[in-house]
């Protein structure tokens, strides 16, 4: 299946001379939820802004369902909805008016029933006549989502949709996003929250300093996450892993006080029982034991950490 969004060799150097993106390539499949993770300043917003036509790329090409974003910008942009990171709304417009405006702006004829549905889905219906200035931050965020959905986009970009949003609203948004995905909308969201990516995404991409450093199926990541470590604190430090235990996947810590066993929790056998039996047989005694699991967060931190 051809990807719905195809980014190739995209780079961006701002007027200040700062290179925000260094030859980024990425393909997004139709109907998936893709989470783009990255620290502040990684280039997430820049990437999204280029795809949506708000920032000009320095080089590279982007196509949306086969439409080049520069040459066939009308076709490309009609397919896209964008929820920006910043809460930028007009002040004195009503919710209804601003959402209807967005629909018209994207070239769609008036359709009160669609606007109504969008507002109801986002629990904004009772606020439809409220002026935007009177809404809370979370409500404004919903209005921005409603505006992005008003023209029934096929691809939805959400730039940190849950920043500054309480738990309940976040659950609501996740539900809305899943429902959209079920109707075939492709969703690309950026986030700082690892749990959000874990919870929502089909695939995860990590961007750091303008470079995509990892793109992986979440299932694959979860498999990596499924890897656990068992740490055994030895009663007597060892100089090396004893020969009698070489059959096991063991490592010795630098100070010799800890034996570390890595195993796969998703595997049929973890091998823990035999390990313990063999330890007993070799006469190694331990004071304490502990299991650890690497989280997506840890993987993420390792990926984006600056080597010092």
């Amino acid at each position, binding site marked *: 299946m051809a990807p719905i969004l195809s980014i190739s060799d995209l780079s961006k150097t*701002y*007027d200040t001379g700062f290179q925000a993106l260094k030859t980024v390539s990425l393909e997004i499949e139709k109907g998936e939820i893709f989470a783009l993770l990255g620290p502040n300043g990684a280039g997430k917003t820049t990437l999204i802004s280029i795809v*949506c*036509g*708000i*920032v*000009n790329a320095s080089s590279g090409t982007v196509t949306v369902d086969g439409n080049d974003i520069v040459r066939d*910008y*009308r*076709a*490309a*942009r*009609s397919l*896209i909805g*964008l929820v*920006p990171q*910043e809460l*930028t*709304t*007009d002040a*004195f*417009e009503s919710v209804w*008016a601003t959402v*209807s*405006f*967005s*629909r*018209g*702006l*994207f*070239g*769609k*004829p008036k359709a009160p029933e669609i606007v109504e549905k969008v507002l109801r889905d986002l629990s904004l219906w009772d606020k439809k006549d409220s002026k935007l200035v009177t809404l809370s931050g979370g409500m404004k965020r919903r209005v921005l989502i409603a*505006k992005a959905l008003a023209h029934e986009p096929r691809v939805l970009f959400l730039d940190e949709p849950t920043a500054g949003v309480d738990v309940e609203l976040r659950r609501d948004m996740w539900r809305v996003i899943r429902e959209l995905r079920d109707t075939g909308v492709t969703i690309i969201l950026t986030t700082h929250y690892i749990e959000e990516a874990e919870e929502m995404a089909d695939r995860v991409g990590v961007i750091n300093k303008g470079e995509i450093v990892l793109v992986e199926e979440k299932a694959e990541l979860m498999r990596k996450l499924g890897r656990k470590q068992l740490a055994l604190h030895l009663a007597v430090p060892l100089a090396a892993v004893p020969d009698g235990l070489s059959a096991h996947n063991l490592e010795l810590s630098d100070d010799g006080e800890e034996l570390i066993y890595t195993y796969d929790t998703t595997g049929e056998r973890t091998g823990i029982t035999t390990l313990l039996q063999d330890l007993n047989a070799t006469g190694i005694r331990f004071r304490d034991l502990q299991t650890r699991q690497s989280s997506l967060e840890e993987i993420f931190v390792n990926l984006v950490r600056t080597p010092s």
Partner: protein
Amino acid sequence: MNIHAIKAIYRFEMARTGRTLFQSIVSPVISTSLYFVVFGAAIGSRIAEVDGVSYGAFIVPGLIMLSLLTQSVSNASFGIYFPRFTGTIYEVLSAPVSYLEIVIAYVGAAATKAIIVGLIILATAALFVPLEIQHPGWMLLFLLLTAVTFSLLGFIIGIWADNFEKLQFVPMLIITPLAFLGGSFYSISMLPPFWQKVTLFNPVVYLISGFRWSFYGQADVGVGVSLAMTLLFLGLCLAVIWWIFRTGYRLKS
């Protein structure tokens, strides 16, 4: 053509005007009345006639032009500057609209409002002085061309400005003086010969002159020249806007 988008932006802009409807209508009515009191009644009583037209009637086309210019520039510059300032411009930039459509919508709305104000002033003036309009078709043409041209200029200013001072600066320091010195309240022929020459470099002279001709059939410069100059200025503004959009100047980084 994305007609829905043009309509959406145009309606949005007109709704913005609608919210300040009272101010939009009342302030030109009041200021026009003041001009009539000061210039028409107080000064006009000492100036009998200009080119065979009573002074009160003589200044009407100039007064309308004065408001038309300032209204066009301020409406259009504010209309495009404000979304840039608040950041809501992102939506227009990400929409499937061409630059031409953006200009038509914003400039169209700004010009519409300016023309409405112009007509309100005309109606107010009719309460003070007996008016005749010899060439109503031409009158409307000049009204339209001027409103569009100066709304384009306002649009350019709204894109160029990166703070509110600059936004105020051009209308205050350039448009108003040019309009005052362009013969809003006097005939060029009343000036010393040297200043008559200098004044011809003021583009507003041609607008006012042409507009006044459509009322009273007489003018400082020929109506053909007036029309040509107006169109020239219109073309100039269009060229600048074309360049702005071609380069993405101040709209996209």
